[in-house]
């Protein structure tokens, strides 16, 4: 479990201390500590059923934690009902009030707090989300993307300390989702409110968030910036859930200075010690990982041209698929049955067709090491708990 040190001056930080949730004998969220700094865009990323939505709902007050506390700045809000928390939520299916028009939906929170003369504020907010023209329409008369913007406006107009977003883009088609990702990021930068975003889409989390917490089975697996998570995954779940990783089981041959030399069959691989998250002792097992785009593919005939000092593996091309910007190869090798390699389509080597003998090689600095005691397949599309388009 990773926890982040709170920024000392942050009076508006969201602080979860030992917060957990159990339903009978099922633990939805294991007690976790998490601090979301004021003004940040924070994403809780994970497959359906990993506890990310439950965590969000505990912050909103819609779910009562079984243990632990929730604080907003200096205020402990654990026992406050939702309507007393300075927090607003954008719900997964928007939950717009169908009997009220767009104007009244957006004005709802202000009216409940007894604020007079809401017209100007509501109109400004509708302008911010580019819905000024639609004020007198009913929610069902708007498109999905417009409804989504109403949901954001309805929450933001209250100037909450924290805005919670529960899979807000899940119901939109791909193109609109991309557009809304940028839009939400723009709004967040503009208003400077803390956003906590729950999603199962790793690309969405990486595009939008400053900090991502990857959750799995009720625990935070790893927390960090998107680049940090991608380049230095600490677990196989993170390595596989964020993008794709090639994982090879290897044995520690020797440790020399800052480098670990490993053996996988008859292949020798080098791994920088700093990038190894597992204990190393000679003869011990380690999972060696490398991202598909870090690898260069050379035809076996040109093997002599490969510079020295690179990790190299030989294999045969099993399959290729051309996807425009890059070509994806699946390589059969003795150490890893399905090695994935992405090659930018700059100068395509026409000899690289299925059956061709190839050498894979990469800079050892791009190698990372993981504890071999974990499942190689955790977090891959086929493994339990990971489904595309999670059900509610």
């Amino acid at each position, binding site marked *: 479990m990773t926890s982040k040190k709170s920024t000392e001056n942050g009076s508006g930080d969201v602080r979860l201390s030992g917060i957990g949730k159990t339903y009978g004998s099922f633990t939805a969220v294991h007690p976790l500590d998490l601090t979301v700094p004021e003004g940040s865009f924070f994403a809780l990323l994970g497959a359906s059923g990993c506890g990310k939505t439950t965590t969000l709902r505990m912050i909103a007050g819609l779910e009562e934690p079984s243990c632990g506390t929730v604080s907003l700045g200096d205020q402990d809000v654990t026992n406050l009902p*939702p309507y007393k928390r300075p927090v607003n939520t954008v719900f997964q299916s928007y939950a*717009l009030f*169908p*009997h009220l028009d767009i104007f009244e939906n957006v004005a709802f929170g202000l009216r*409940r707090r007894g604020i007079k003369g809401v017209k100007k504020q509501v109109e400004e907010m509708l302008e911010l989300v580019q819905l000024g023209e639609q004020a007198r329409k009913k929610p*069902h008369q708007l498109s999905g993307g417009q409804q989504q913007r109403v949901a954001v406006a309805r929450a933001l107009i209250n100037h909450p300390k924290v805005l919670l977003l529960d899979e807000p883009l899940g119901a939109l088609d791909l193109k609109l989702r991309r557009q809304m990702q940028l839009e939400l990021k723009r709004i967040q930068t503009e208003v400077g409110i803390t956003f906590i975003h729950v999603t199962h889409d790793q690309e969405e989390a990486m595009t939008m968030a400053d900090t991502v917490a990857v959750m799995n089975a009720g625990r935070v697996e790893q927390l960090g910036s998107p680049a940090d998570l991608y380049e230095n995954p600490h677990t196989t779940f993170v390595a596989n859930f964020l993008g794709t990783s090639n994982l090879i089981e290897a044995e520690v041959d020797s440790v020399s200075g800052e480098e670990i030399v490993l053996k996988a069959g008859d292949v020798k691989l080098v791994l920088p010690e700093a990038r190894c998250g597992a204990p190393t002792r000679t003869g011990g097992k380690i999972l060696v990982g490398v991202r598909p785009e870090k690898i260069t593919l050379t035809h076996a005939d040109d093997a002599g041209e490969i510079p020295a000092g690179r990790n190299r593996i030989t294999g045969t091309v099993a399959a290729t698929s051309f996807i425009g910007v890059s070509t994806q190869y699946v390589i059969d090798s003795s150490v890893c049955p399905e090695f994935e390699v992405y090659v930018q389509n700059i100068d395509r080597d026409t000899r690289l067709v299925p059956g061709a003998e190839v050498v894979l090689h990469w800079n050892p600095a791009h190698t990372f090491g993981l504890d071999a005691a974990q499942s190689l397949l955790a977090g891959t599309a086929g493994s339990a708990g990971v489904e595309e388009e999670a059900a509610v």
Partner: protein
Amino acid sequence: MSTLAEAEAPPPLAPAPAVPTAKPPRKRGRWTPYLLLAPGLVWLLVFFAMPMVYQASTSVQTGSLEDGYRVTWHFATYWDALSEYYPQFLRSVLYAGSATVLCLLLGYPLAYLIAFRAGRWRNLILILVIAPFFTSFLIRTLAWKTILSDGGPVVGALDSLHVLDVTSWLGLTAGDRVLATPLAVVCGLTYNFLPFMILPLYTSLERIDGRLHEAAGDLYAKPFTTFRKVTFPLSMPGVVSGTLLTFIPASGDYVNAELLGSTNTAMIGNVIQSQFLRILDYPTAAALSFILMAAILVMVTVYIRKSGTEDLV
């Protein structure tokens, strides 16, 4: 259906000399909608439209049982009936209205409970709501006669709590009796029509997305405000259909007033029934029926307009 078939027909190309254009090609399924409608239409024609016409003609007839009745377009029957029996009309509206309000007050919390809080007991409670229908309407009303009987436990309890003093003072009961008073009739009506209120209320409450309650709470609405601003407005279709399903049959009912009331609590249904079956003054009975029908139609139309259901989702 037929427009669809026409749209699918290929556009006319070259003139086809062999086939005269006057004969359109046979369209499949053209008669299907009418065939499907036919049984219902025939039923309504025989058992609804024809009796209506017959009653309408009866209401403008004059004559006597011995000499027979003839249509004389005697519309004065309407005026006579209305001027003689308007107290019963008003009483019907009053009793049915009170029963409807009571049904709403009793039924709403129950429907709310079934829809949102009952959990696994939901189906059981729904069955209990419908269960009284397994027994005859008449038997159930007769049972109320026993429940409210003089000197019975209910009356005794109400008496010792001095409730009867208050209701007597309000004119709802008479002395230490509950039976044969307006209260008894309204209680009977409320009881008999309660399921007609609960079921539509339940249906419309059950359709409300629970996340709307969460959203309202998230937007600073206290639980009661959530009810007032979100739940209740969204349940309006149920409130409207429930009140209609209660009020309309209650205002024409005569069984409750007959069994639980007295001559002082006679409703318009009792008048119509006795005109038809005892006094055998068919024109007056028919005229009263039409007046009742028209009155209900007007009230219902105004009510639906006022409650603005067409704006609701």
